[in-house]
């Protein structure tokens, strides 16, 4: 990857490797590009559209979702024009109508001058903004694919199969960690890990030496399988080894 491509971001020139996501180039140049659905560790999904920027590759200027736009040619980018602010404000308006109580949305709303959702939009009180980070993390990083989208349009939501407990879920908590609205919660109680949203109640392993619960059983099984370890090596916790 010796080839570096010139990118001009808000008048600042930087050089980035071929296929760098445009959002990363913008951040390297010190521009703030807000996003709700992008995480550098998984494939871009381009669903929230809040990260859009004005890109010009020579002929005309277009709005592109910078997370799903790999840099392949010389490109000039604006990240904070009036047109962008208008478009972002509209998107936040729609999101706010769906989830009027979410802190991340209110922060963005304040930044882009949205007071509240448009009065003609009916308000739902969802806590999930459908960014899909949990679904993609579960599939790509954990490899469990325990949750998925269901339904279309306004009925769309993230569920475990049949909205019931799924033994494929290893209760690792990665979905809760990536969730921008923190609507996925888990807690450990009496040797069980409860992931409420997916109705998952998973057993915790007990350390043979100190008797502490230290890891969900299914997580230990997954580590062992992925790393070719003996599952028995998780019988003793890391404090007692």
């Amino acid at each position, binding site marked *: 990857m010796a080839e570096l491509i010139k990118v001009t971001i808000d008048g600042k020139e930087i050089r980035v490797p071929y296929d760098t996501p445009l959002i990363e180039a913008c951040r390297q140049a010190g521009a703030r590009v807000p996003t709700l659905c992008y995480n550098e560790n998984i494939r871009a999904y381009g669903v929230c559209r809040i990260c859009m920027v004005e890109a010009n590759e020579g002929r005309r200027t277009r709005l592109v979702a910078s997370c799903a736009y790999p840099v392949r040619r010389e490109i000039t980018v604006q990240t904070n024009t009036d047109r962008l602010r208008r478009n972002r404000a509209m998107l936040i308006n729609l999101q706010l109508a769906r989830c009027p109580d979410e802190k991340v949305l209110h922060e963005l709303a304040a930044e882009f001058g949205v007071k509240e959702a448009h009065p003609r939009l009916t308000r739902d009180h969802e806590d999930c903004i459908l960014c899909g980070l949990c679904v993609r993390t579960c599939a790509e990083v954990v490899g469990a694919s325990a949750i998925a989208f269901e339904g279309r349009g306004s009925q769309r939501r993230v569920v475990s199969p049949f909205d019931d407990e799924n033994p494929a879920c290893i209760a690792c908590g*990665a979905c809760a960690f990536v969730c921008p609205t923190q609507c996925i919660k888990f807690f450990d109680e009496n040797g069980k890990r409860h992931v409420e949203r997916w109705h998952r109640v998973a057993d915790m392993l007990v350390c043979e030496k100190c008797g502490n619960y230290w890891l969900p059983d299914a997580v230990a099984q997954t580590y062992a399988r992925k790393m070719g370890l003996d599952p028995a090596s998780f019988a003793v916790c890391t404090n007692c080894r």
Partner: protein
Amino acid sequence: MNETGYGIFAARMLPKDEPFVQGHRACQGCIPALMLRQITKAIGRDLIVCSATGCMEIISSPYPFNAWGVPWIHVAFENAAAVASGVEEGIEVLRRKGRFYTGRKPAVLALGGDGGTMDIGLQALSGALERGTDFVYVCYDNEAYMNTGIQRSSGTPMGASTSTSPAGRVSTGQVTWKKNLAEIGVAHNIPYVATACPSYPFDLMAKVKKAVEVKGPALLHVFAPCPTGWRCDANSGIKLGRLAVESGLFPLFEVVDGQHKISLDPATMRKSSQDPIGEIAGYLFQQGRFRHLKGRDELIQAIQERVRLEWQKLKAKTER
């Protein structure tokens, strides 16, 4: 919600960017350096750091090198909090005049060791907390002045042998109790005080993020094992942090607007009903600085009682 429960898959979702870079000169197994990595990952590059003299300043900036990928200023031992106040005021003034390069306000982080915070920098810290400066003060507590050669500080725990409280035939090491920094912060009525430990990285990072988001001063007391000064194996720092937390020696809690909340209650990790608070022998005897306590049961018992008492006091505060 317990941030302590996340595992390796959550860790893979962290940013790859490293504002505190490798190649610095920390000892093997340095936990404060690990803490800096976690803190800078949590905050990102919108950050200005004011570092008091101490281990983390020495190891990150041997002339002419620097391990910081963010604006960083080294100040004297006693005034990290005062300089952070100045930086914060400076940003405010430049923003008001419209001369700050972005509209955003970067996080201001003051960094001090236990000596630079609890002994030398305490009045500057108290002043900054009292003025209501919008900044985060992180005290990385490795329980002695490590970079000058392990002298005792007011963060050194009872019984620890250091070069100025050496254990021998007459002395049993440090003869005073550890200063309770978090409660000093709480007494200033600031919006956010928390204790954390790099052995629980997601808990630490969540607390750092909260501390940055809070308007007004925030104080973080981070328990950071130092294998060199504690005379233990370089690979045991993380484990010692966990043992200290799980025995109640260093409870993890946060105080939001005066409301105490325990982040990790060791009793909930137990299968049996036996109380884990006060089980400090496993923690003590992995460290050379407590080696002389073997056979001195009355002192160990005194430490145990103190740990239980402090835990009960903390519990009482959460229930209020």
